[in-house]
């Protein structure tokens, strides 16, 4: 037995090493993926709740009932079991408004982040890869953009476009394309200095081919991470604009609008502020976790 073991030992240790490496890889993948999984799960749940709001909502989010105004959430004295999270000063169900408010939040998050990502990435690639005049123009644009306080600019833009969902999205895209452009430009330049790009150019691939097939695949981790972070920012900006009263019209429930009315009746019904604030917090945190985790999982350098 002992001989046998010693004779197969090299192979088994080789196999063991392989197995160990596999386990290690799997464990690394799982542990790094915890953020992605957790963040992604919350985003999916939130998305499902928003999409199916009409089916699962316990009440009409717009229905006023002054007889049951400012009822506290379940578990507090005077609560009504029909209103799980209580009602606001007009007797509207807080939970129902949260669910419907999620529709606005997630629409803005995905559409605005997607568009800002698209525009910013294209401009960043052009500036970083073709350089010269294109780079000068894009860089100068970014400088001017950076001189604006984002919150002020978003309020300004929405004032120009008029309030509404489209204006909010347009404002976010116009402001935040620079986040993508700046990072993508710098990353493209860093990649362009690497040997594999020189090699691809030396083989004789056209510039555009090198950009799209050699460089862009290496930028995906950064772009995906930025997209997720941007979605979180978009949710906040929408909340801020509807808090100020410059987002969708006031008869559409939004988290920011709920926060604004909660701020006004703070001492009569703190839950009208607390509930949307908590949801906002969890949503933004989920997008952040997902983005952070995604960058680490997809980035071969950080994976090591």
């Amino acid at each position: 037995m002992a001989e046998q073991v010693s004779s197969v030992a090299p192979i088994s240790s080789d196999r063991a090493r392989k197995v160990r490496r596999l386990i290690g890889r799997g464990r690394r993948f799982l542990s790094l993926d915890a953020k992605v999984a957790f963040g992604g799960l919350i985003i999916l749940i939130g998305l499902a709740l928003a999409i199916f709001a009409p089916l699962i909502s316990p009440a009409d989010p717009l229905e006023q009932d002054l007889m049951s105004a400012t009822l506290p959430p379940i578990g507090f004295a005077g609560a009504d079991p029909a209103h799980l999270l209580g009602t606001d000063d007009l007797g509207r169900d807080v939970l129902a408004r949260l669910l419907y408010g999620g529709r606005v939040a997630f629409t803005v998050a995905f559409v605005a982040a997607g568009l800002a990502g698209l525009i910013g990435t294209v401009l960043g690639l052009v500036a970083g890869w073709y350089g010269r005049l294109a780079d000068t123009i894009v860089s100068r644009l970014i400088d001017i953009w950076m001189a604006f306080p984002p919150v002020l600019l978003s309020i300004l833009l929405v004032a120009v476009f008029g309030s509404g969902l489209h204006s909010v999205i347009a404002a976010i895209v116009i402001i935040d394309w620079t986040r993508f452009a700046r990072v993508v430009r710098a990353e493209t330049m860093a990649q362009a200095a690497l040997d594999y790009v020189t090699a691809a150019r030396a083989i004789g691939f056209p510039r555009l081919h090198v950009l799209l097939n050699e460089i862009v695949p290496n930028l995906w981790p950064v772009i995906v991470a930025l997209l997720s972070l941007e979605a979180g920012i978009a949710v906040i900006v929408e909340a801020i604009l509807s808090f100020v009263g410059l987002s969708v019209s006031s008869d559409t429930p939004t988290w920011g609008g709920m926060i604004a009315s909660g701020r006004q009746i703070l001492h009569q019904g703190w839950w009208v502020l607390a509930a949307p604030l908590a949801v906002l917090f969890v949503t933004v945190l989920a997008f952040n976790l997902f983005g952070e985790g995604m960058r680490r999982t997809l980035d071969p350098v950080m994976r090591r």
Partner: protein
Amino acid sequence: MIVSVINRLVVAAITLVGVGAIVFVLLRVVPGDPIAMMISPGASPADIAALRARYGLDADLATQFWMWLKALLSGDFGMSISLRRGVLSLLAERLPATLELAFAALALAVALGLFLAVLGTLARRTVCEPLIDALNGLALAVPDFVWALALVLAFGVFVPVLPLSGRINPSIDEGFVTHFYLIESLLRLKLTAFADVASHMAMPVIALGLPLAAVIVRLLKEALKEAMVQDYVLLARLKGMSELRLILQEALRNAIGPTLALTGVQFTFLIGGTVIVERIFSYPGIGNMAVDAVINRDLPLIQGLVLMFGLIFILVNLAVDALAAFFNPRLRHG
């Protein structure tokens, strides 16, 4: 050195003019007539025309821009339509409130960030480190808007110890000469007034400062950890220096550069954040005024405010560059 300074100043000037042009163009395409919002419904067309002429809204765009630029350069920022007062004097009145808020928040962020980064470095490789990192990650994700409202709930409702709105209790009349209430009350040793102003500022300052503190902790802690394994730290450790002294005397000096540069950039975000935080706390600064100006479509006031914010941002960026050069001699000759 001189060339790079001039270069930066020119870029700053171009940026400011660019900001001005964008603001001007944007505001001229605003739907909604500002004059229509300030007249009573029964006004005659002649009255409306007279008002248009008074605010210079009857000329064509190019002429308006030229008039506007000339006026700006001579220090005339126009009249606020909604408040019927000179824009410049309004700004001069409100800006100190915002500056006090922003710099107090910066001070809080730097102090807290420095303290926690050093603490985190001391606690590295212990069970405390992942805890600090996790809390730090959490704090990084939370924007000032959410902090502000969470503070409103915590210290305005559940433990009502801090005032929820305003800058100073109206019953306190100290006959302030300047609009820097916090600084002036301290210098004149009016301690009740100082305490009152400080308590009004507490929540907005914390809300603005915490996100920046989180950024500082993240960056500085990484840099300190890297510095702590360098040879010069090892040498100092062999000499018998305590861990805390190692960090403060040896590592910090070498690690602080990049953090400093980024703190400057983040400070401009903090100033941008004053808009919404001032709104939440009804704090009478330029941010709160900006929101009102937009809601009232007060073009001259919006213009002045945006230019003011643009100027502050550019000045902060210049200051950051100067500080970076001061702390890193290599940049001075680069």
